[in-house]
């Protein structure tokens, strides 16, 4: 049986990708960001998940508004990393497991999630910005990705509650897959930022930290907020935090926050958090003690 072994919330700011590609990992203004991902990469290297299941958004790159889905699951053995106007990056195509992707899709549609499906299409910074900070890519990525794109650009967006329920259904879908795959669920985007209109540059660290606490311990409360609430509290583009709610929905009731990094450099509160289910964390600790 496939199972979820943990969760990650991460920003997906495109300039993270630019800084990564330019090798600015040690640059004093970028180091607090890149340092903050090292424990996450280490955690993944130890846990060795087979699959990262991403709740992310495409930024009108692969998906244009002439046909715009609420939820879109990607199917493919390879997804190129998208050209978003500045040319291609030097990263290998993202890998996929078609049978697992198809299973998740079938399970979700049968549970009345009305997914769209895309095949083999490019994936933009919604995944590609944080991915190389999480996983090595030489000679190739160590595992496969299930990309689930969520509309956070064109209103009506799926409600916060719907995203949370999507995550819950994804957990059931994962656990109904017979092969023994280890899956980490990842929600990308946020935290506070607004990057359009006169309100550009809005941030709210107090709300960001409150969001992280509530997400971990009382996620249902966050499902009651409207999109306008998210926009008011965290800025227009912070509404993409509903993708963190989808990730949270796929995890158990009681979570241990294993690591957190929060760095507000210019306009986006760049954040990464890893979670394990408390039972799992306790069991792991116990195993370690037994070995010692």
């Amino acid at each position, binding site marked *: 049986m496939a199972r979820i072994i943990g969760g990650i919330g991460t920003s997906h700011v*495109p*300039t993270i990708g630019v800084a990564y590609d330019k090798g600015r990992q040690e640059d004093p*203004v970028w180091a607090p960001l890149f340092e903050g991902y090292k424990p996450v990469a280490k955690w993944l290297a130890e846990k060795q998940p087979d699959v990262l299941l991403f709740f992310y958004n495409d*930024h*009108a*790159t692969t998906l*244009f*508004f*002439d046909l*715009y889905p609420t939820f879109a699951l990607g199917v493919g053995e390879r997804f190129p990393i*998208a*050209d*978003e*106007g*500045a*040319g291609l990056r030097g990263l290998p195509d993202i890998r996929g497991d078609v049978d697992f992707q198809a299973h998740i899709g079938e399970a979700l549609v049968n549970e009345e999630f009305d997914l769209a499906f895309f095949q083999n299409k490019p994936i933009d910074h919604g995944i590609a910005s944080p991915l190389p900070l999480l996983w090595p890519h030489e000679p190739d990525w160590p595992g496969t990705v299930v990309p689930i794109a969520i509309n956070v*650009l*064109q*209103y*009506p*967006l799926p*409600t916060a509650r719907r995203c949370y329920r999507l995550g819950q259904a994804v957990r059931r879908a994962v656990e109904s897959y017979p092969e023994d795959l280890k899956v980490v669920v990842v929600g990308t985007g946020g935290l506070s930022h*607004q*990057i*359009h*209109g*006169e*309100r*550009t*540059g809005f941030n709210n660290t107090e709300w960001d930290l409150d969001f992280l606490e509530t997400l971990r311990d009382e996620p249902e409360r966050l499902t009651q907020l*409207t*999109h*306008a609430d998210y*926009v*008011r509290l965290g800025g*227009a*583009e912070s509404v993409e935090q509903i993708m963190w709610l989808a990730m949270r929905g796929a995890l158990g009731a009681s979570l241990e926050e294993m690591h957190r990094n929060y760095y*507000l*450099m*210019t*306009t986006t509160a760049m954040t990464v958090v890893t979670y394990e289910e408390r039972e799992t964390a306790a069991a792991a600790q116990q195993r370690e003690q037994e070995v010692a």
Partner: protein
Amino acid sequence: MFTQNPQTVAMPEGTYVFDLRTCNRRLAFNRFFWNMIRPEARQAFWDDEEAAMRAAGLDDEEMALVRARDWLGIVQAGVNFFVLEKWARVVRKTNLEVYAIMRGESFEEFMQTRAVPHAR
């Protein structure tokens, strides 16, 4: 407009809801910017801006906004920022520079409002 999506009631000032109606009204304008993910479209724009706009079917108001590099006006007209930022790459503006313009500030003024003002 007869109805209002309850999820978008009470949006703060200086924020523009890109919804189905806006999208329908400004589909060609959004597509013009979206096309910039393709190298050929970037080259066509560099080669002849006016011809590229005409080929994309922009109306006079839209063409004027592009000519004026009126970033805020383009957003207010109903362009989603995420297609607009593709064009920012083409005209060699960083996102931070565009942010400053939308706020009506010089780049240096804007950066002074940031947590790490010397970040780039």
